[in-house]
């Protein structure tokens, strides 16, 4: 049996599945249920300043988009940080950590961008016995209007400064949670590292409007006829999050910085992909909000089955394993030639590949009067569109042309040697070809 024990920034948990700071981790009641269901750790719902807590809207705070059969694909929210008094949260955290010493308990924190505010609150929170801190520089709505959350996360200098204050104020690990609402995720990640962060976590939610109510002409979720942009999460954001995680993992400045991967993780496979791209552990919010805490059981059984099948004994063996294969476009092998292949036995003759290729790609699929669809090798650029639109899995696949064979589209023999854009003759700034 694969060992799922995880150590992230020195914080131990029995598995790499943590609940992200959000409603699932809002209070003692939820967190106890989560631990009983098997979650390895939780990042407690973001704590704010002592004093009167923030208030939330009293109408709907979520919007959503759905796939077929009303499967929830994306969720958006306009919720703020915890709306419960700090003391209540701290008492609850103390009790939970005492009763579940083997699970990770991380305190998420967001206070105004003032040194004293951060330096006062961290030691107070540390008294709960929590295992570390996560600085919430990500929340993109509401709190950002008050100069916190993503308003800090979008300014690398602020990130570095606040991180440094926090590192001065505590000996516990400090994780900086990043907002994806930036043009380049590397700047905030590098700033966190410079400030002394032990690790980063990402992504927080993405600015979004999920839909517009065409009767009331207001964005959803609608509050008394008005709406505001909310934070988007769930399966739909996974590709964005994966890329940001991979960018940080392969960037020279940030390589080796522990990353807690977040964004759309719904199954064991999603989690394995984040780990492969360099995340040391993962955090989950929407999947738990959609299916309940029990989903973690599938994540645990699936990850350990896959690790067993692959012969990976522990998480160290998979974390970052795919990172060396993430590269820039310019380094992709242009001598790697593939062609689409249609399995006529699997084909159900719907013609979607034809429509896609004929109308929007390279006119490389032929259609006979008997509705037989074939790939024209002399036109196929191997774009993969037909593969992606075909309703039958594995009906269209890509075949790699062996070196020495003829690419009928270019009329050239496929070369064995690697050749990328950097050496291509059409590249004006190509370094010596050959």
């Amino acid at each position: 049996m694969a060992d799922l024990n995880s150590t992230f920034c020195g914080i131990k948990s029995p598995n790499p599945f943590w609940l992200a700071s959000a409603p699932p981790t809002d209070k003692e009641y939820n967190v106890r249920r989560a631990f009983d269901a098997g979650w390895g750790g939780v990042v407690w719902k973001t704590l704010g300043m002592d004093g009167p807590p923030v208030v939330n809207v009293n109408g709907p705070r979520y919007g959503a988009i759905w796939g077929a059969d009303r499967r929830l694909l994306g969720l958006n929210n306009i919720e703020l940080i915890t709306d419960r008094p700090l003391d209540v949260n701290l008492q609850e955290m103390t009790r939970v950590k005492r009763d579940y010493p083997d699970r990770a308990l991380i305190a998420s924190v967001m206070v105004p961008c003032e040194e004293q505010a951060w330096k006062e609150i961290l030691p107070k929170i540390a008294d709960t016995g929590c295992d570390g801190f996560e600085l919430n520089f990500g929340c993109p709505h509401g709190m950002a209007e008050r100069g916190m959350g993503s308003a800090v996360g979008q300014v690398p200098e602020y990130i570095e400064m606040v991180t440094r204050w926090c590192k001065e104020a505590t000996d516990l690990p400090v994780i900086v949670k990043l907002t994806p609402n930036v043009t380049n995720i590397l700047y905030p990640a590098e700033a966190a590292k410079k400030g002394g962060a032990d690790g980063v976590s990402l992504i927080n939610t993405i600015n979004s409007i999920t839909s517009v109510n065409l009767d009331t002409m207001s964005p959803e979720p609608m509050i008394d006829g008005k709406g505001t942009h909310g934070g988007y999460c769930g399966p739909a954001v996974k590709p964005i999050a994966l890329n940001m995680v991979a960018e940080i993992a392969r960037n020279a400045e940030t390589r080796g910085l522990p990353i807690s991967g977040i964004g759309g993780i719904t199954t064991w496979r999603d989690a394995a992909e984040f780990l492969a791209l360099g995340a040391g552990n993962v955090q989950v919010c929407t999947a738990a909000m959609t299916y309940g805490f029990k989903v973690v059981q599938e994540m645990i059984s699936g990850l350990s089955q896959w690790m067993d099948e692959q012969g990976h004994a522990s998480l160290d063996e998979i974390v970052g394993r795919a990172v060396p294969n993430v590269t820039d476009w310019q380094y992709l092998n242009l001598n790697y030639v593939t062609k689409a292949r249609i399995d006529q036995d699997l084909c159900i003759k719907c013609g979607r590949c034809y429509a896609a290729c004929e109308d929007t790609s390279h006119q490389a699929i032929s259609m006979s009067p008997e509705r037989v669809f074939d790939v024209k090798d002399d036109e196929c650029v191997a774009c993969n569109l037909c593969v992606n639109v075909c309703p039958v899995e594995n009906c269209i696949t890509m075949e790699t042309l062996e070196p020495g064979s003829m690419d009928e589209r270019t009329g050239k023999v496929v070369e064995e040697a690697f050749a990328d854009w950097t050496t291509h003759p059409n590249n004006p700034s190509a370094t010596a070809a050959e």
Partner: protein
Amino acid sequence: MTSSMRKSGVSSGRLDAASVQSNFSDLHPPYDDHEALVAADRCYFCHDAPCVTACPTSIDIPLFIRQIATGTPEAAARTILNQNILGGMCARVCPTETLCEEACVREIAEGKPVEIGRLQRHATDVLMEDDTHPFTRSASTGKTVAIVGAGPASLACAHRLAMYGHDVVIYEARPKGGGLNEFGIAAYKSTNDFAKKEVDWLLKIGGIDIRYGRSLGTEISLDNLQNEFDAVFLGMGLSGVNALSLEGEDKNHVDDAVAFIADLRQATDLTTLPIGRRVVIVGGGMTAIDAGVQAKLLGAEDVTIVYRRGKDAMPASKFEQDLAQQKGVRLVFDAAPVGIEGNGSLTAVRFAYTEQQDGKLVTSDETFTLPADQLFKAIGQTLGPVPDNIQLEGRKIAVDNFGRTSLDGVWAGGDCATGGDDLTVTAVAEGRDAAEDMHSKLMGEG
């Protein structure tokens, strides 16, 4: 082919081999991988799911379906087998329409349940194809348990005990294990010798020794078992059958439906199995339906099931009634047999319509006759001989919620014991639960 169908009397070879083979193929054929994913996708992963409550073995259905959906059918199988070691057979034989699938929220909302049974089959098939056994034994406890019968209740009990490290000896009267899985379940539910394969696979846990051809009451006695073993489990099912108590019951081709099905299940070539041209079955349960349908599939021209009460009171589910009718079996309600006709061999059965009188079912004067060259009795099975000193309740061995009988150190479960319906899945649940109780007793915790 038609001519041999019209051959009078009881005769073999009514259909050619190809027709018989196609007739006896899987009732619910297995999914391919894609179909399984599509079917799994329909599950809502309900909280405190009603389907789980409806499963006598409480399989975590939403979890196993999600494990299929996420590409780990092996993990799904483990989720199933943890609760129900005969999950493979149950996937094939459970009347899901009255169990999990009846309770599925999508059955209630749309009249189209998630196909839990077929998904369960998909997962267990994948795991069992792999030919490894997913469980291992705990260190030996040195405790020994004797089990009577090798049916589903006993096998589930034995497997759980073996997992806990106890050594189990099963005494089985027949030359083969599996109980009614092997001898009773309709052939189109358990194809390709699955019952035997499943028993072989189950025994791979180790620590279970089956001794065939050993009956309680003849070769072995309960006293001896109690003396030799630390605990005893009785899972001998119902080996007797009810009689019609009519004159002429001893005529040729007045047969017991369960015995007919057992012969059918053990036949190596179904075209050699004799069946009547006109077959009448008396009864209203699963056995009646299975005998009727299989008679038809063997090539009987006319098959009629006669049940003494109305359609709604019939113990066979609506799904099974529909299945019988689809296969061309006629169902006649509210009639009971009153006479068996023929010289030596059966020629017809006389029935009288029934009616309620003062809350009792009685036969009326109105009668009809069905020509028949074979009559199957399917009016229920009874407990075979049991040790005198054990307490019965009604016609079964009395047990409490833990499966304990009136005798110290003796447990019982499955069809021979009180509690639950007479179903494979119920037998598994009772065998498993008794094993849990036996284990805690044996380890001095209970």
